[in-house]
């Protein structure tokens, strides 16, 4: 006997009513997609949980991958047996012996199928007795057991599980539409992407590239960040905008203190266009109130003024150290701290206005014709698709 399946429990999806199916279908697809590299598994999705039949695969790496799929609250290894007391006894004995280091145990039976002849409480005693008389050195502890064996007697079959592993929670990526993430390569924007994904949003990213002021490595950094983010959802398209000419023009034509604000407004205009062209309904940034000059109330007001699109700012009320904590937890940090300049750190004036006036910004912009440059930037966009499952074998022949 062995654990032959993994049981995935829903988080918030469980609270959904009529449209639950939309969410469970999406989650099903995401699970199948993520576990594509395990050819023999079978994924079965039901109203209140997902079962992965292992068919001989090692459960460890699969469970690890499942903890990164949004929409799953927790998961456990499970054994499926018939609704027959003897089979259940045998499986419970296996589960107990399989748990290393456990000295005390508890049985928790849940009997959904009321036709099962023995009541839950009574069956707990029956199973406990069976385990005690067939093992040595174990005792029952109902308050603080080393291992709790859950026996779940359902209509057709019974599942036995023991250890529960917590997963990422949230909603299945793709169930809440798409956003365009302004991805710079710093610490904040990838975390903002992670947070929106957690709420079921699928990502596309936009990155402003200013060669030769920014290097290929800065671009690579963004690709690597996006690749890490794909662990939590599907492939990510990155729109890389050639931004050099616009930035040079801003630097030349706009008074120093206002150049940063104007640059941000240009980014918003381009992002809105890209969103529009790709059927995306919102923009997402890693802004956190008061962190830098562009993230004051006045700046946000002046920058936001150029778009009617909703801008999602999942980090708006977070402290830097809270953001760093998430960045480290989800393995983005080591990439984010690579020391390459991005378009936001070049041409930075010594003292950008922290309280830019919206009317002044508009006046300065009106003195310069940016239309052609904006269009050129949009036309020159390079789209990079980050899909680890298809991309990674670039050097396959060599390695």
């Amino acid at each position, binding site marked *: 006997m062995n654990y032959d399946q993994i049981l995935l429990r829903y988080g918030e999806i469980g609270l959904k009513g009529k449209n639950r199916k939309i969410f469970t279908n999406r989650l099903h697809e995401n699970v199948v997609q993520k576990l594509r590299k395990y050819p023999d598994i079978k994924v079965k999705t039901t109203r209140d949980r997902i079962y992965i039949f292992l068919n001989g695969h090692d459960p460890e790496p699969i469970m690890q991958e499942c903890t990164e799929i949004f929409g799953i609250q927790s998961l456990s290894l499970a054994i499926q047996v018939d609704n027959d007391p003897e089979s259940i006894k045998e499986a419970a004995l296996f589960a107990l012996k399989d748990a290393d280091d456990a000295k005390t145990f508890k049985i928790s039976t849940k009997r959904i199928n009321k036709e099962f002849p023995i009541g839950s409480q009574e069956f707990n005693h029956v199973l406990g007795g069976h385990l005690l008389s067939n093992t040595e050195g174990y005792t029952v502890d109902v308050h603080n057991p080393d291992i709790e064996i859950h026996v779940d007697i359902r209509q057709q079959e019974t599942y036995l599980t023991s250890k529960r592993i917590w997963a990422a929670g949230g909603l299945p990526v793709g169930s809440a539409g798409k956003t365009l993430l302004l991805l710079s390569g710093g610490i904040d924007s990838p975390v903002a992407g992670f947070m929106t994904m957690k709420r079921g949003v699928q990502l596309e990213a936009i990155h402003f590239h200013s060669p030769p002021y920014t*290097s290929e490595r800065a671009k*690579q950094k963004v690709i690597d960040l996006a690749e890490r983010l794909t662990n939590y959802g599907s492939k990510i398209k990155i729109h890389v905008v050639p931004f050099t000419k616009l930035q040079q023009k801003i630097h030349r034509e706009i008074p120093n203190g206002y150049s940063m604000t104007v640059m941000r407004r240009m980014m918003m205009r381009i992002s809105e266009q890209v969103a529009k062209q790709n059927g995306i309904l919102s923009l997402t940034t890693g802004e956190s109130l008061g962190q830098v000059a562009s993230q004051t109330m006045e700046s946000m007001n002046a920058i936001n003024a150029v778009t009617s699109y909703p801008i999602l700012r999942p980090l708006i009320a977070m402290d830097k150290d809270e953001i760093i904590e998430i960045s480290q937890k989800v393995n983005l940090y080591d990439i984010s701290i690579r020391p390459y300049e991005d378009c936001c750190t070049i041409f930075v004036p010594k003292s950008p206005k922290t309280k830019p006036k919206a009317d002044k910004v508009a006046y300065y912009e009106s003195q310069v014709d940016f239309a052609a440059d904006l269009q050129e930037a949009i036309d020159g966009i390079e789209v990079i698709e980050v899909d680890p499952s298809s991309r990674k074998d670039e*050097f396959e022949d060599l390695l």
Partner: protein
Amino acid sequence: MIYLDNSATTKPYPEVIDSFSQVAQQFYGNPSSIHSFGLRSERLLNQARKQAAHLIDVDESEIVFTSGGTEGNNMAIKGIAFAHQNRGKHIITSQIEHPSVLETCRSLEEQGFRVTYLPVNNNGVISPIDLEKAITEETILVSIMHVNNELGTIQPIQEVGQIVSKYPKVFFHVDHVQGFGKISLDFYDCLIDLVTISGHKIHGLRGTGILFVKKGTKISPLFHGGEQENKFRAGTENLASIVSMVKAVRLILEQQQIKSDQLRALSNKLKKSLKTINGIMINTPEKHADHIVNISIPGYKPEVIIHALAEKDIFISTKSACSSKQPDESAILVACGFDKEIRNSGLRISLSYENTIEEIEQFCTELQDVLLQLSGIMR
């Protein structure tokens, strides 16, 4: 040609040489150069590191690319010694280590370190009890090889790891050069901090190797002058060699999966045939790594046998290539307590997954022939 000196070095896989040649021609940009041509090399280097980590089942940050076994052993031992000498200056190793471990330890003795060289039993195996007794407040490192290069003896690495882990101040290094690709070793399970692997023993090229350095282990570098290899090893990365070695790692592990049984059969056949030849003693103990068989033919000078076989295009060796320029007896056979006759006449036959049963048969026939020819003259 019948090549039975695979523990000295192996024939590089053709795929390995292909990789080397392609990378040397197309990826000569320095991975640390900031331009995009350098970036291309850096990406290949990262991918190689990722694949190496995946293959040996460790984290990317734990892979240090080196120039081979000798550097790996030096880096591990001196690296720990110099970085942690303020905690203590005592090192424990065994009497049957490779010269790159023993000589490194001796050089440390000259610098004020104290080294315990654990004895081995007749089978060439250390005693965990001896080890535990040898550990003191001053001990900072235990360095024990996995598979012995002359005898093929396997050391109880897991047990040693258990013991060393009871002393949190002590690091554990394993010279895995002869074992890698032949006898699996779970670095984490065995609680090892540093592991040396060499490329040219697994059909890679000379000048390649990996030192596994467990996350959080501080070692002082041998080379200074750059931030390469996580600051553990300065110097422009030898990209073509590294990539070709990672390919060798992949290939040897594939071979290990499918050909372990075949190698065992070869080894058994070899021992069985040798036993039928008069005068041959098998020094390798019953339980050993299949690819190494050590024998003695008392009364015959081993060098003469080697040369006589070489004339027939068959190649075996005496002791480890790294100690073979010193005369006479094998220090390892001495440590195992063999008689003088035997330890002066040790021969090593070392196999690879490439050898065939026909080669083994022919080798045994030719060896018998050689002994017959020589018997009139030498005895």
